């Protein structure tokens, strides 16, 4: 088990290194001289030649690419991600200030998806090929086919404008949370249902389920204890992938609902070509992603006694 975790940790560090390199190169892949781009961004005017020279000197931009990259990495290890061109605030602070709102959204979406998706997926698996299973399958297929941004707008139209039940923009109360969460949860719930269904169906064919039946256990116990406990192992591993969907979805849904989270700030920064923010966010999002996948790996080891055992010997 320890070896597995060390392996994962090493690869996580490796991923982060590559991510930082990529995010640093991003600035250099932008058309034109980065100094020129940034200066133009700041003043809105075409910068003069000596202005560019000065800026490049001040920010060590005239050094070779690799040296700059290493320098940037050095600053990174000291938690310095640069300063937003738009707000003048450190990128890290901008991120932490908005992280709460996105986290709130993510936790609510995950909770809702699991609460709804898990039982429906299990239920569908216990009645394979029945009419209800077929309906669940087609509906969940539709669920993963609806674009989030459109779904968000349609829900807004329906529940805010026509029915007037819920606020469509803003952040603060639980009522504000409902529409963005539902919008994001539809796709994730749908894919969770599909995954749980397949996973349970696979497990239900195994020999130990026959044993459980031969023991005279109730079907509820067989499905929800014997099958689910094993089927959850692969389900947990995809939760990490789902986080990728969630992050991507959050970017879009936060923009649609003006949710003051990381995603909206990210998109706004892209519109404003706020390079330090874009760079920093790529890194932070990659770090979050890597971290969550690491947690999933640990959870996986915890859930599957077989892996636990192999690691011990």
């Amino acid at each position: 088990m320890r070896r597995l975790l060390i392996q994962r940790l090493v690869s996580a560090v490796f991923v982060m290194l590559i991510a930082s390199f990529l995010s640093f190169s991003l600035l250099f892949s932008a058309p034109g001289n980065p100094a020129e781009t940034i200066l133009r961004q700041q003043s809105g005017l075409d910068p003069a030649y000596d202005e560019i020279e000065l800026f490049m000197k001040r920010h060590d931009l005239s050094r070779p690419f690799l040296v700059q990259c290493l320098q940037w990495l050095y600053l990174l290890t000291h938690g310095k991600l640069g300063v937003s061109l738009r707000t003048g605030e450190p990128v890290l602070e901008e991120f932490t200030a908005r992280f709460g709102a996105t986290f709130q959204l993510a936790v609510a979406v995950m909770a809702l998806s699991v609460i709804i998706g898990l039982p429906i997926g299990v239920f569908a698996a216990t009645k394979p090929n029945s009419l209800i299973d077929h309906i669940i399958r087609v509906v969940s297929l539709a669920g993963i086919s609806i674009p989030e941004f459109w779904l968000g707008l349609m829900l807004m139209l329906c529940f805010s404008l026509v029915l007037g039940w819920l606020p469509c923009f803003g952040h603060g109360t639980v009522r504000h949370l409902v529409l963005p969460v539902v919008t994001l949860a539809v796709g994730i719930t749908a894919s969770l249902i599909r995954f749980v269904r397949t996973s349970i169906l696979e497990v239900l064919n195994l020999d130990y389920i026959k044993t459980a039946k031969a023991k005279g256990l109730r079907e509820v116990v067989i499905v929800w204890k014997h099958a689910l406990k094993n089927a959850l192992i692969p389900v947990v591993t995809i939760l990490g992938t789902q986080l990728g969907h969630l992050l991507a979805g959050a970017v879009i849904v936060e923009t649609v609902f003006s949710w003051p989270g990381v995603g909206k700030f990210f998109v706004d920064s892209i519109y404003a070509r706020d390079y330090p923010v874009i760079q920093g966010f790529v890194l932070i999002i990659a770090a979050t992603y890597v971290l969550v996948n690491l947690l999933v790996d640990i959870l996986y080891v915890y859930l599957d006694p077989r892996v636990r055992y192999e690691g011990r010997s």
Partner: protein
Amino acid sequence: MLLEITNLRVYFKSADGFVKAADGVDLELYPGEILGLVGETGSGKTVLGLAITRLLPKTAAVSGEVLYRGQNLLALPEEEMRKVRGRQVSMIFQNPLGSLNPALSIGEQIAEVLREHRGLKGKAAWQRAGELLELTGIPAKWIRSYPHELSGGMRQRAMIAIGLACAPSLLIADEPTRGLDVTIQVQIVELLHAVTKGVSPLRSMLLITHDLGVAAALADRLAVMYAGKIAEYGRTGEVFRNPRHPYTRVLLDSHPSNGLVAAKGFSPSLINLPSGCSFHPRCKKARKKCAHEPPLMQRIGLDHEVRCFYA
């Protein structure tokens, strides 16, 4: 009579026609008796075991009668049947690694049966599970271990402990020694003997096996199965000493202790069974009649029946 099976048929529908896994099987089992059901892989013996406890997939068409203490199990409502399983009739499967749940400790897998059928709670169930483990020869300290942490023999012991949890009057053991080392096989046979013949009142067992040695060691009576039908039925000693069905002879000859004379040909596909006696294409003694007319079971001794015209 503890178990009385009459005219049991199990057919599976497949794309090529019906698979006749059991085709008119009659068997009986007295209280305290061990009946050995022997035959090659694919002869339908496992299906028979599953048909008794109604654990076959829904695609199987089952007909006939399975009387357990005079009650037809095939006609019981599912909920009643569930209460029979594990409490009155227990099954011990082959391949204990696959048959034990990898995500639950063996203690939990024993305790849950006690909670379900005996109404034991928390500690009491756990305590009893430990006793059952000890009974089958596993130190109780192993109670929290998972199946993959045990050796093959220990797993089979745990499987037997699960089967014994509610002190059932009938055990159905499906190839309990398959895949185990020979020395371990001996231990499992001894254990099975101890938990059937060594308890009072005696416990009945339907022992399904392809291993004649195991059957000889445990069974009071033998039923030899071929292509979904019982070919020969009699006291174990009698069948071994005086096999009357040509197939039984082949089986006995092919046993390692007799120098392994393999049977000519393969066991037939259960979809396209040969006409007449289904053994006739492989039978040395077959005559014209065997290809056309299916032989009936005939009594040839006090407790000895054979399905052959020329027995």
